[in-house]
């Protein structure tokens, strides 16, 4: 995993189990802005003071080229829906485990065909968080996490790379699974470890519900302790291919 600066060329955007990166021209802005509640006591304070109130978090607009390839083109977004979005930011290379990742469940507000310099393009505006999400509301306040498992097609039962998060937390986490292809039956889990050894001291942090659904996404929250090191694991229960990507936001 590299660190430092990067370009849009190395970003990806996944929504509900679809990799839209091959059609996307740009997306964003990735807004995370708090309303500033003015709490100035004018008769007593030396300077104006504020506290962050409710944040606005949004994935902005996805701008893509129109591609009608059956089942894989941007046309799969024609149906307006709430979308579980994962946007890993690769650092001067394809996204790798540990890279920054923007995550959330946002309302898709449209599917607009437009002309741009002679090209037929599609603009997909997204709105705010989907308020019907089942996870605790506090989990909606933080959109930035890390990519735990880059988009991969494992051959069999697998243990993903260990990602060091710098420290443990007691605030819980929200994990995002993008399942691009899953005709097999996998048990998919995230394990956490205090040492990173994963030599028996690790424990299961969460188990995804989706084990055999093709082209889907899942958002799963856990509360309490999350140890410093995390990895994504899969146990193959039945034959068939699997292609997934997983990100996690520690709260």
């Amino acid at each position, binding site marked *: 995993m590299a660190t430092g*600066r990067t370009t849009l060329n190395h970003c990806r955007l996944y929504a509900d189990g679809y990799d839209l990166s091959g059609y996307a021209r*740009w*997306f964003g802005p*990735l807004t*995370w*802005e708090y309303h*500033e509640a003015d709490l100035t006591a004018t008769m*007593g304070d030396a300077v104006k003071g504020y506290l962050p109130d409710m944040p606005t978090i949004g994935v902005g607009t996805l701008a893509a080229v129109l591609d009608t390839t059956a089942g894989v083109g941007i046309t799969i977004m024609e149906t307006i829906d709430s979308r579980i979005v994962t946007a890993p930011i690769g650092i001067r290379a394809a996204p790798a485990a540990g890279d920054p990742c923007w995550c959330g469940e946002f309302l898709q507000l449209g599917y607009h065909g437009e002309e741009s310099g002679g090209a037929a393009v599609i603009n997909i505006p997204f709105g705010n968080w989907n308020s019907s999400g089942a996870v605790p509301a506090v989990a909606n306040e933080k959109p930035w996490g890390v990519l735990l498992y880059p988009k991969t097609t494992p051959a069999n039962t697998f243990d993903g790379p260990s990602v060091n998060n710098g420290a443990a937390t007691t605030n819980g986490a929200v994990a995002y699974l993008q399942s691009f292809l899953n005709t097999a039956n996998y048990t998919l889990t995230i394990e956490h470890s205090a040492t990173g050894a994963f030599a028996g001291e690790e424990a299961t942090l969460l188990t995804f519900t989706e084990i055999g659904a093709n082209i889907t996404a899942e958002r799963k929250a856990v509360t309490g302790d999350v140890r410093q090191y995390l990895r994504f694991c899969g146990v193959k229960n039945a034959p068939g291919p699997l292609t997934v990507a997983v990100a996690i936001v520690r709260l």
Partner: protein
Amino acid sequence: MAVNTGRTTFKHVLFVIDDSGGTLRAIPINSLSVVGVTYEELDLTAWMDAVKNALPSMPDAPIEIGGPFDSTVVAAVPNLSGSHTVLSAINGLMVPLTLDVKFGIRQTYQEGEPQFGITATATAGYLCTKYTVDPSTMMYSARFVLFPGSTLPAWGTASET
């Protein structure tokens, strides 16, 4: 190096902010709003006055920055830490932060050269209220405002701590 006096350029400006653990970090910027305290002007003019007049009312000192998205791990000042590494962990935190804008005079900032900021206490300092990234340019924008009841940030010639 000895303290320089005279004019300078933004190449020598360093933006320093506490990370989520309370350690000062310098992050890359390529835009910076007005730095300083601005007072509201309260117009107290009466019809029969000879000229419009006013008094300074409440001051404010918000600061907005922008710069390249950068995931570099944190490093000791004056080395640059990653903007994303620092800002993604402090946006929305209710803990006052030390903020220091250091104006190096034709060189890397030296103690004795001008700076603007505030050293955080439990009741004074800045809060980060915005961290937005535009992937099309891979630039971020961020905003800082003062904690309620905070003391005034000020110009000085010694780094905030």
